[in-house]
């Protein structure tokens, strides 16, 4: 039952993007996300679309799994689009008023803005889901740890944070398995989770939650003992089993992404974009804080 839910989103494959270093992927993903926010014209969005198509094709992840990730933000998307359409006030000298009814006004500028916001959010999610679909959670944790290393200088316990993260990740599958087993065991004793009123259903979860909680503590204690008995000491110069290495793929990937963004922004007027972008940022901060 719970086994059907694949943990995380990782889609195993052997593609170019899969083989890239997780750190580079993470950084490029950040570049992409920031870049997306500077895009103002539909022409540039066209280029971004082409870029995404190439990216997805080279990651060999089926488009279906990528589109699935959009499902999660569908409410946010609708809300954004609707609010932007109705509450964007156009400039009477430049823009056209399309519909006006009671306190609502729909301007063409509002439609454009809503469309851009929609594309921006969708591309943001698609871009980042390429990262999570092609990188295992473990690799991602390692990448974060490695990228945060400089913070050690100001005494941020980077290694411990990464350890907590990776322990959490590694506990999830075993806890899911245990949940599955407990559910089955209680079902075999006639437990019924699907019928009855709210109270009855909530009560039906007690026989699952208690053993799960007890098991969770047991596992945590066992793990702590195991680590102690092996003299685990945290950040004192530990080596890693999987050493992350940069390869030609990372160089090529980085160059492609950076070249793409630089070219597109140079061709389509960096200067005016910067101004627009600044206005856009202000706008977001003042009115559309919902995005953040």
């Amino acid at each position: 039952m719970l086994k059907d839910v694949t943990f995380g989103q990782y889609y195993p494959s052997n593609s170019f993007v899969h083989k890239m270093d997780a750190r580079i992927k993470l950084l490029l993903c950040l570049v992409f996300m920031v870049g997306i926010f500077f895009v103002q014209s539909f022409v540039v969005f066209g280029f971004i679309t082409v870029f995404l198509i190439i990216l997805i094709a080279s990651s060999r992840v089926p488009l279906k799994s990528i589109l699935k990730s959009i499902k999660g933000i569908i409410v946010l998307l609708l809300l954004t689009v609707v609010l932007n359409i109705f509450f964007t006030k156009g400039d009477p000298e430049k823009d056209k008023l399309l519909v006006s009814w009671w306190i609502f006004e729909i301007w063409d500028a509002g439609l454009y803005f809503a469309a851009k916001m929609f594309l921006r959010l969708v591309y943001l999610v698609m871009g980042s889901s390429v990262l999570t679909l092609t990188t295992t959670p473990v690799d991602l944790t390692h990448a974060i740890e490695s990228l945060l290393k400089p913070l050690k200088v100001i005494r941020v316990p980077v290694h411990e944070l990464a350890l907590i993260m990776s322990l959490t990740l590694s506990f999830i599958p075993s806890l899911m398995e245990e949940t599955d087993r407990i559910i089955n065991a209680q079902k075999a004793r006639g437990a019924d989770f699907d019928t009855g009123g709210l109270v009855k259903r909530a009560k039906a979860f007690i026989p699952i939650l208690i053993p799960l909680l007890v098991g969770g503590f047991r596992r945590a204690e066992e793990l702590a003992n195991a680590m102690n008995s092996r003299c685990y000491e945290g950040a004192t110069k530990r080596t890693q089993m999987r050493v992350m290495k940069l390869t030609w793929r990372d160089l090529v990937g980085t160059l492609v992404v950076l070249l793409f963004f630089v070219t597109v922004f140079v061709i389509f007027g960096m200067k005016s974009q910067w101004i627009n972008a600044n206005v856009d940022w202000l706008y977001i901060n003042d009115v559309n804080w919902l995005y953040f």
Partner: protein
Amino acid sequence: MSKPNKQVVTPQLVTDSQTAIVAQNLCFTYNAKSPFSKQALNNITLNIKKGEFVAVVGHTGSGKTTFVQHLNALIRVQSGELRVLEHNLSQKKVDLKLLRKQVGMVFQYPEYQLFADSVLDDVCFGLKNFGLKDKAEREALAEEAIGLVGLDFKEVKNKSPFDLSGGEKRRVALAGVLAMKPQILVMDEPTAGLDPRGKREILSLVSSLNKEQGITVVMVSHDMNEVYENADRIIVFRDGQIAYDTTPRDLFRNEEDIVSMNLEIPHMAKFANELERNGYIIPDNCKTVEQTFEAVMRLKGGE
């Protein structure tokens, strides 16, 4: 996988009152149609009679646990036919309550399923779920089951199950299943993690339930010695298929093949095989040390 051929299926699936479990071309794939898909069962066909003590063995990942979870519909049939007692599990509609009452399932490490405030409540959980309203009746059944697993009812009934020792917890969990008076008892490694004495006690309990009350037992196990001594019949799973389905003695005559499946040869089987190779034949039903000893003494006396 290939759909079962209806023409071949029907005649063999006729069940009579003596049949407990029939499977025909049972197949199961985890995460079908995803990159994680894994075929766990591949054309399983078998027939288990009422009152049999069947052991299911096989290497990790051979599909044995998947198979036994089919038996009380924790996993639903994907393709193929499966009947358990009067239930046809290949059909969508199954009386799950009745089925699960009749087929008691003891999971691996069953002590991890305990949850109630007291041992009595935990043992009664199943009875309550299966609609036994009368409290006194429930307690009577619980008392009987707790006595059966060798615990003192008066002493443990009000204790928290979490205060018991590991072996006692397992007995309580077993009692929770036995209290429902199942006709078929399915157990997934019931002795794993117990000390030798605890193992012996659980096995002799299961054995006596099988012999005296006629309960059909299906036991998954990794311990070939206990399987050899207790089961009437052993089914060996390999890569989702049945590799062997035969009596313990016959099974372990194929020493090389058994070892190649990462299974052990039981001590007594090894001994008997060695005797046979040297021309001394002892009866097939000599499975324990004592029985073998007597048989050897008889051989000696006869010479």
